[in-house]
């Protein structure tokens, strides 16, 4: 956990005071909605189809139990008793009243939470691996640099009115759990040939109507230079990014139009003039931030304690859950537990206030009071003793978050879609819900194996459909909802954009089409352990296309 000091608290409280004044001016009519819009957007407040929506940042996906309890409180007091975890490590409340917003924000501020950098044309919430600090394959905790960058770009005087939003992710593992290459800017900690730690810098990734994977513009950036180099990238983008067309304003278009090499040259020229200035990250500064991350006092334990093994043998359901939801921890005797927020018929990423309270309690009891939020819209308890897993499982099952469907076909990533969002062309949530019903049989899900479905209700691609193994994009045709289906996308270290399999299909046929695709896979795979994504890679999309459209 990063522990806020007086400095961080002062800034957040001053922000609430400022927003209170802005809301008062809006309510009195001194500000028009048009004038108020950019101000509310800088605090994560959107106006959606039915109400204002408040988006709150969960920097790099780390929450304390006190923070999660406050999220539950806000859901209960100001919303309709639930919150929605997004694909960018934020939580959204969809039913907030304007006049209550300042109080909701003040409540959040009391635990160091806020909506700064969650909307508007600024650097958005910095995301990372939800297993940061506990993953066995990690080089170093990426959250230290995520926090350094978060602080630097918060209310940045130069970069609060950029051409468009700017998303940064930081990773530090061999396996990419942060979807690095779909970000405007991604930093990946790795070792160079001499064994020194440095960052690979990738720019220009993003989905939306013109999807691109980020390109590497600097393979080795020293830690001391991270802030100055990020500043040079942002300054280049702020000056030269397109502002004539909102759909061409993201940095990916600038990088594409200039070419990655020319863009890198422009950045480098700017960087040379600032790299040895005030932004140098000397060891003292990095150590200071790193020291404010507190780590649990782990016990000395052995892996696979007998009571855990006995519980696995005794209960098939527990054993299944362990196989699906429990991952290795870097410390012996501990485990990382994923809590599925994807129950049958549910809305992906939604959690009720009661669930949040209970999870906070379980985090206190079993996970050093810490909870993680992943971009797949699930939660995790990052430090659970293996011998506590059976008791934890029963408690999680009681509140419906122990469905062993993590990474399976019903673990769907979805945006809110037309049920809430004013940008959407089509519904997303009911598609997800229907699919979880079609694939409710867990044996079938396990037989299908790892299979990511991503659903977006419009071309803005908040559901990351381009990088879903099966991507579903809602479009509007003559006033009706249609859906384009892509296959073969992925967001990991071998990131790839999916390929469109054919004409869009109407709302009522989407679940049938996905069932056809799943059936085709079962016939096409060479072995039971050939994953869906590998079969698509081997066969191409043609046999799937034939299967889907032959019958239609």
């Amino acid at each position, binding site marked *: 956990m990063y522990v806020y000091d007086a*400095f961080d608290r002062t800034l957040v409280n001053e922000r609430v005071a400022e927003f209170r004044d802005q809301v008062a001016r809006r309510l009195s009519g*001194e500000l028009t909605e048009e004038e108020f819009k*950019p101000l509310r957007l800088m605090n994560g407040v959107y106006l959606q189809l039915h109400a204002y929506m408040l988006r709150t940042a969960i920097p790099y996906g780390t929450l304390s139990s006190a923070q999660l309890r406050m999220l539950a409180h806000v859901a209960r007091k100001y919303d309709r008793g639930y919150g929605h975890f997004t694909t960018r490590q934020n939580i959204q409340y969809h039913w907030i009243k304007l006049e209550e917003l300042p109080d909701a924000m003040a409540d959040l501020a009391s635990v160091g939470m806020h909506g700064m950098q969650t909307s508007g*044309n600024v650097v958005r919430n910095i995301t990372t691996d939800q297993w940061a600090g506990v993953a066995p394959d990690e080089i170093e905790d990426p959250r230290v640099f995520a926090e350094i960058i978060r602080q630097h770009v918060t209310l940045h005087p*130069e970069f609060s*009115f950029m051409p468009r939003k700017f998303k940064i992710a930081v990773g530090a593992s061999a396996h990419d759990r942060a979807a690095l290459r779909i970000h405007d800017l991604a930093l990946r900690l790795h070792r160079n040939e001499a064994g020194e730690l440095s960052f690979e810098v990738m720019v220009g990734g993003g989905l939306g109507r013109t999807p691109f994977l980020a390109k590497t513009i600097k393979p080795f950036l020293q830690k001391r230079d991270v802030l100055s180099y990020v500043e040079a990238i942002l300054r280049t983008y*702020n000056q030269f990014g397109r502002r004539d067309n909102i759909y061409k304003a993201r940095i990916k278009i600038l990088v594409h139009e200039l070419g990655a090499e020319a863009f890198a040259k422009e950045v480098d020229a700017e960087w040379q003039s600032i790299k040895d200035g005030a932004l140098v990250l000397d060891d003292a500064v990095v150590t*200071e931030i790193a020291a404010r991350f507190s780590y649990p006092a782990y016990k000395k334990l052995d892996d696979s304690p007998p009571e855990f093994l006995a519980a696995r043998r005794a209960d098939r359901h527990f054993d299944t859950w362990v196989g699906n939801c429990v991952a290795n921890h870097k410390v012996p005797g501990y485990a990382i537990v994923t809590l599925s927020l994807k129950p049958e018929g549910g809305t992906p990423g939604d959690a009720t206030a009661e669930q949040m309270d209970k999870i906070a309690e379980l985090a206190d009891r079993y996970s050093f009071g810490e909870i993680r939020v992943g971009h797949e819209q699930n939660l995790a308890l990052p430090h659970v003793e293996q011998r506590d897993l059976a008791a934890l499982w029963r408690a999680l099952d009681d509140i419906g978050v122990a469905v062993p469907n993590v990474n399976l076909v019903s673990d769907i990533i979805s945006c809110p879609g037309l049920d809430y969002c004013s940008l959407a062309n089509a519904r997303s949530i009911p598609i997800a819900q229907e699919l979880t019903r079609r694939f409710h049989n867990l044996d079938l899900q396990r037989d299908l194996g790892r299979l990511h479905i991503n659903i977006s209700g419009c071309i803005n691609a908040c559901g990351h459909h381009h990088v879903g193994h099966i991507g579903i994009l809602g479009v509007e045709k003559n006033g009706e909802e249609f859906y384009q289906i892509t296959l073969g996308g992925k967001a990991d270290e071998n990131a790839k954009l999916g390929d469109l399999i054919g004409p869009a299909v109407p709302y009522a046929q989407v679940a049938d089409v996905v069932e056809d695709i799943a059936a085709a896979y079962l016939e096409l795979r060479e072995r039971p352990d050939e994953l869906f994504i590998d079969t698509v890679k081997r066969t191409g999309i043609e046999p799937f296309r034939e299967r889907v459209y032959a019958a239609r």
Partner: protein
Amino acid sequence: MPLVENGKIVEDRYVRVDDAGSIPERAPVIISAKRFLADAATLVRRDGSLGVDWPNDKRAAELAPWLGHLALVALNFPKFRDGRAYSQARLLRETYGFRGTLRATGDVLRDQFSFLVRAGFDSFEVKKPADARVFAEVVARYSVHYQPAADGSPSALRRRVKAVPAAKSGETV
């Protein structure tokens, strides 16, 4: 449009001269970048304060050779959402060392004041009189800043690490 300097509404001593108009002797004037660049060598020898209105799509570097002769540079915000001039301002102040008056013009509204000050502006053509009147109060809203910028206030990182000087060269105006 009220002009704010040093936190107060003041009279504008500069006269804007359009590209066809004759430039009065000795009086402080602001002329367009186009007119200035067409005859910069002559204009900088003129007696009297010279200001240049620099559009937000022109590189600040082009102005760098002349900065020592300019009393004022006006940077423009065609819409408050168009933030290019923040970068120009920081470049002029921090990279090219401009010490004259840096004026913000255009869609300059209350909720940008803090950002503008921190980017190095010290003169503000404020769009709404009500905003101009509360300038000093608004820029005092934030007592702490995370990042170093052109206004010389130390960053949180530096303030926390006491061993490191609060402001190095390049951090101050």
